[in-house]
Every structure is written in structure tokens, then in C-alpha cells.
């Protein structure tokens, strides 16, 4: 690029994929599937103090057809599992999944007859957030991790998911 003030427009060499990824990573629309106390931390992350909108992910969509990122925050039991899977199936490609908190990642301390032992039993998960519940910083970090996946073109978890697609 030249920097002379000659009135000629500058230009930037890139690929279309990189351009799309650049746009995509700053316009993530999360769907928060909050079933437990992790949902309170999501509210904290979206609020003014932590302000997730700095990372381009503040437009929370409660319709799965308009969302890019499924943020599963909280305990998922066996009865809720088909509902969660249906919401995941309703989201349009490309889509990413964040599993937030010990319950969503592994069932947490609910090692009993009713709680699904981690949502990765029913759907591919791109980023896990540990903690019970995690800090809002954890959510921000997970969004940044999703942005890195988009930016680098790394395969999504759905592409490694056995059997589905």
C-alpha cells in the first residue's frame, strides 16, 4: 500500500474467505441456552461492566434460526436433551457451540440418574469453559476462542462430530 496523498484509493490484498471470516468473527449472534446459575454470569458478561459487545457478540438472539453461537450455560438433564438437540439442529450453518460450566461440560457434581453427563454426548462442542460457575471473563475468553477458530479457518467441532455431517 502506498501512503502518498495522491488521491488514489489504496488497496489490500486478501482472499474472499479471509474477508468473510473477518466480518463473521465480529458479528457473532449468540443464543444463550441458560438453564442454571451460569445464566446469571452470562447476564454479567453481557452487561455494562464486562460488556461482551466489545467483541461483537452482544446481539443475543432467542431464535435459533438467527443465531451463530449456541451458548449452553447450565445443567442439562435427559428430559431437556432432545430439546437442546433440536435447537442445535434448527441453527443455520456455520454454527459454533460453547459449553459453559461444569454441568454442561461433564454433568458437574450431578452424577445421578437424571442429568446428561456433558452436552458433548448429544452435540459437537467447540469451546468448553470450566468453572462452577465460570467468571464473565471465561465467557469473553470463549468468544475470543471462537473468533480465533473463525479467523484461522480451523475445523469446527461439527466437522469432526462422528456420524452426523
Amino acid at each position, binding site marked *: 500500500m502506498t501512503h502518498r496523498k495522491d488521491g488514489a484509493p489504496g488497496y489490500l490484498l486478501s482472499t474472499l474467505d479471509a474477508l468473510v471470516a473477518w466480518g463473521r468473527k465480529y458479528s457473532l449472534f449468540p443464543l444463550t441456552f441458560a438453564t442454571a446459575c451460569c445464566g446469571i454470569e452470562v447476564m454479567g458478561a453481557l452487561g455494562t461492566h464486562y460488556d461482551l459487545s466489545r467483541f461483537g457478540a452482544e446481539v443475543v438472539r432467542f431464535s435459533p434460526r438467527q443465531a451463530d453461537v449456541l451458548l449452553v450455560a447450565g445443567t442439562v438433564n*435427559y428430559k431437556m436433551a*432432545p*430439546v437442546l*438437540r433440536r435447537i442445535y439442529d434448527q441453527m443455520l450453518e456455520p454454527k459454533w457451540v460453547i459449553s459453559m460450566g461444569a454441568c454442561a461440560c461433564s454433568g458437574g457434581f450431578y*452424577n*445421578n*440418574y437424571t442429568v446428561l453427563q456433558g452436552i458433548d*454426548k448429544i452435540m459437537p462442542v467447540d469451546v468448553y469453559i470450566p468453572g462452577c460457575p465460570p467468571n464473565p471473563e471465561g465467557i469473553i475468553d470463549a468468544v475470543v476462542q471462537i473468533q480465533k477458530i473463525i479467523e484461522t479457518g480451523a475445523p469446527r467441532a461439527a466437522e469432526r462430530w462422528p456420524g452426523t455431517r
Partner: protein
Amino acid sequence: MSRVLDKLAAVFGTEVVATHSDFGDDTALVRRDRIVEILVFLRDDPDLLFDFAMDLTGVDHYGEEPRFEVVYHLYSLEKKHRVRIKVRLPEDDPAVDSAVTVWPTLNWYEREAYDMYGIIFRGHPRLTRILMYEGFDGHPLRKDYPKEKRQPTIGPEE
């Protein structure tokens, strides 16, 4: 004994197996054969008037026989007194007559006890699972339900 238990024992005699009033809580263990009759008496007798069925729970006394127990917690809004009625059920036939006709509110409690313990309430209008899903195998609050057992994950219903 208290007034409630005295009256119950006087009317039903040998149907009442045991009573106590520990900590001020009147409790009567009764036979299961005439349970609905006993509950109707408790509800309608002008001295008792137990018009409010507060709770119904199941209990699993694993290792004992009879193994299962159904507990009715009754309260009288009119008389301001309480009573606890217990029925023991054998393991090979954990069934008792439904009390939905006596207090309609027991409908969901009986379904819960069926769901969690497998206790059959004869004559219940719709004795299906209420908390767990239909594909669930077993009754999770039984003491011999394996703690590590995992249920099949059901897919979206189409």
C-alpha cells in the same frame, strides 16, 4: 394418644396397626385394604375434617418386608390439626388403592410416587410418569437403583 388417633382406632379397630405421637406428630400405620375408606372417614368426620391433603410420598425400606411405604400428610383447615397416615406395601405387590377420588390434589403426588418408586395406585385416572420421560427404565429413588446407571438419551420427537 391424641383425639384424632383415638377416634381412628375406635372406628377402624384392627385396621390401625400402630400409632404414635412422637414430637407431637400424630402418626398411624394402617392396613392397605381399606385405605380409601379410612381416608374418606378422616375427610368427612365432623370432628376430624381433614380437608387438605398436603403431601403424599413413597418410602423404600430396602431390606425390610413389607418394603414400600406410602405416607399421607393431612391437615384440617377447619380444626387446625394434622395427621400422618402410613401404609406398608410388600415388594412383590407394591399396590394400593388410589385416593384421587378423595382428594383430587393427590393425582400428581401419586404419579410422582409411581414414577420414583414404582408404587401402583389402583384406579388412578392416568398413572404415567410425571417427572421422568416415558423412555426411562426403572424407578430412580428405589434403593436398589444403580447409582451409576445411565439411561438412553432420547432424540427429538418427530
